[in-house]
């Protein structure tokens, strides 16, 4: 426990405060800059986020972390925050071109101040969410992280799909929010306090959970509401529609940043105070993992729309990540590291995929057939797509392999071998649906025309990358290879 405004206190909380101030500043940049609003807002947001990342990396933290009232910062929390900030940064870089006309068939985005401001507020919520030390901070963080996303999803009001996705997301989210508040009230009833310490004491002291119906009811309701954020079965129905309707940059953020926040929130609770020793929550997580893997895999196989495909693929990825919660007692540290590594890798691969989608989507609908002939239009882009897909599948030299290996290893600690077998089966099946994208990309265009494909649907002009685009593509490709071949570079996760 440290007192407020001492040095360790400030160095622990400065990044969060800086991010909050940045979000407010970005909201006002639209007013300050009359010309080139989108460009300037993006610049301010990128510079500010870079500063937040530097603060997170550079500020010293006592080995035991810093805690004050409902807020705590530990090494692991700092790693989560770095992941969120990186996802937001990548989303901002990806979104810049969508504010210009003619860069998407869906029309340009407007309101850069609102877009970047809401994105940063959502990130602030995620920061609060992982730093929570009581359910009050947790609940407010969860709401602050998700509420801006509803508005972001509906940020193209002229587009019927965008507003429909936004309203569906909002209604489902509000339902989950009410469920989590109901669950929190039961946990409060059981523990008499909202603090995680009191909760952990009650959770571990009781002889059996059936003697504590309040605790059990609260845990199950919170699990349900977090399952919604994770897009885990049976709470995954919203994901395909929302991913399809939202602006592309928002879809990218939903499938990376928001997914990371949901996983982090589940970690905060279920590897923390609600890590119930008396009841096997692992069995529930294992069941949810199997169902998510099935739903994601079967759904992804029959999609032609790229965004819906990505939604189902992210449901399957959530299934893999749920495996980390089945390790039982003593696996918390390993599970946390596996999840953080996996989310970093999955995020990198996802952004590579979205980068390709955003360039293809300039002149064609975002469907799998639109990828046809990509290798002829831009060999580099097709190679990046291949790297990203191989990493998502988990082919050894690339980063995805180690991520899946770590997750399977956590599940193996508790002897969930059936789960691992099903996971391996899902990996094998994922070969099929990820390879469909690659097959289209490397298919010679000649054969496509011979089959009588409509010529207008296959725009074959070469894709030219700007200098920034080339740099981004190279960086993503290098990351995908380096994260997999020398994960030792990521010692920072283990040592922290």
């Amino acid at each position: 426990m440290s007192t407020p405004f001492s040095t360790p206190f400030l160095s622990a909380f400065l990044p969060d405060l800086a991010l909050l101030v940045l979000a407010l500043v970005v909201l006002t940049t639209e007013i300050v800059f009359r010309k080139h609003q989108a460009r300037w807002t993006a610049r301010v947001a990128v510079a500010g986020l870079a500063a937040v990342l530097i603060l997170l990396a550079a500020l010293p933290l006592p080995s035991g972390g810093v805690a004050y009232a409902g807020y705590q910062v530990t090494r692991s929390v700092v790693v989560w925050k770095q992941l969120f900030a990186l996802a937001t940064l990548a989303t901002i870089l990806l979104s810049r071109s969508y504010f210009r006309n003619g860069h998407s068939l869906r029309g340009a985005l407007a309101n850069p101040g609102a877009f970047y401001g809401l994105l940063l507020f959502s990130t602030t919520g995620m920061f609060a969410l992982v730093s929570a030390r009581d359910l009050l901070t947790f609940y407010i963080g969860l709401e602050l992280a998700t509420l801006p996303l509803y508005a972001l999803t509906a940020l193209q009001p002229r587009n019927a799909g965008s507003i429909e996705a936004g309203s569906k997301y909002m209604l489902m989210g509000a339902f989950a929010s009410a469920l989590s508040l109901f669950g929190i009230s039961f946990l409060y009833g059981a523990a008499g306090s909202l603090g995680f310490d009191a909760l952990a004491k009650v959770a571990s002291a009781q002889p059996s959970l059936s003697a504590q119906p309040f605790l059990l009811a609260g845990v199950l309701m919170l699990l349900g509401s977090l399952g919604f954020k994770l897009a885990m079965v049976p709470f995954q129905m919203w994901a395909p529609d929302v991913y399809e309707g939202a602006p592309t940059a928002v879809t990218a953020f939903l499938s990376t940043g928001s997914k990371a926040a949901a996983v982090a929130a589940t970690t905060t609770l279920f590897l923390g105070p609600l890590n119930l020793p008396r009841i096997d929550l692992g069995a529930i997580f294992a069941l949810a993992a199997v169902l998510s893997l099935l739903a994601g895999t079967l759904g992804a196989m029959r999609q032609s729309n790229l965004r819906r495909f990505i939604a189902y693929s992210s449901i399957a990825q959530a299934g893999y990540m749920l495996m980390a919660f089945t390790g039982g007692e003593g696996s918390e540290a390993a599970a946390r590291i596996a999840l953080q590594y996996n989310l970093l890798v999955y995020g990198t691969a996802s952004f590579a995929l979205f980068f390709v989608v955003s360039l293809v989507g300039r002149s064609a609908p975002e469907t799998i057939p639109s990828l046809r002939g990509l290798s002829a239009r831009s060999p580099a882009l097709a190679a990046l797509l291949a790297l990203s897909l191989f990493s998502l599948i988990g082919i050894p030299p690339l980063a995805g392999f180690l991520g899946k290996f770590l997750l399977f290893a956590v599940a193996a600690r508790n002897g969930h071998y059936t789960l691992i077998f099903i996971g391996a089966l899902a990996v094998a099946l994922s070969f099929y649906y990820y390879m469909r994208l690659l097959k289209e990309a490397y298919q010679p265009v000649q054969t496509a025309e011979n089959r009588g494909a409509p010529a207008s649907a296959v725009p074959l002009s070469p894709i030219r990358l700007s200098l920034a685009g080339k740099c981004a593509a190279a960086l993503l490709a290098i990351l995908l290879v380096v994260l997999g071949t020398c994960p030792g570079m990521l010692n920072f996760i283990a040592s922290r």
Partner: protein
Amino acid sequence: MIGLNLANALTLSLVLVLIGAFGMLRRRSLILVLLSIEIMLNGANLALISFNFFLWGTSETGHYLYMLSIGVAAVEAAVGLAMVIVIFRNTRDVTRDRVSLLGETKAEAEA
């Protein structure tokens, strides 16, 4: 005569949450769906303050969360109503039938 005790208060809050959930599933009008969400949230809030009142009367933690959650509910209502207004502008109608463009069938049709 029904006594004022924890069991009855919790039953009432559960009934409110269930009414809200039922309304969310059944109502066609988006405005009424938003109202149902408010009823659900208020059911949860009632559980929160009754736990505080009947079980843990020495502190006010439950009331703090209750007040903050009213703020959250207001924000949710604001975002929801903004969307309803946009939907009304686009279609002159605020029933759910207007928001059913996305889905598998359309994805298949595009293929």
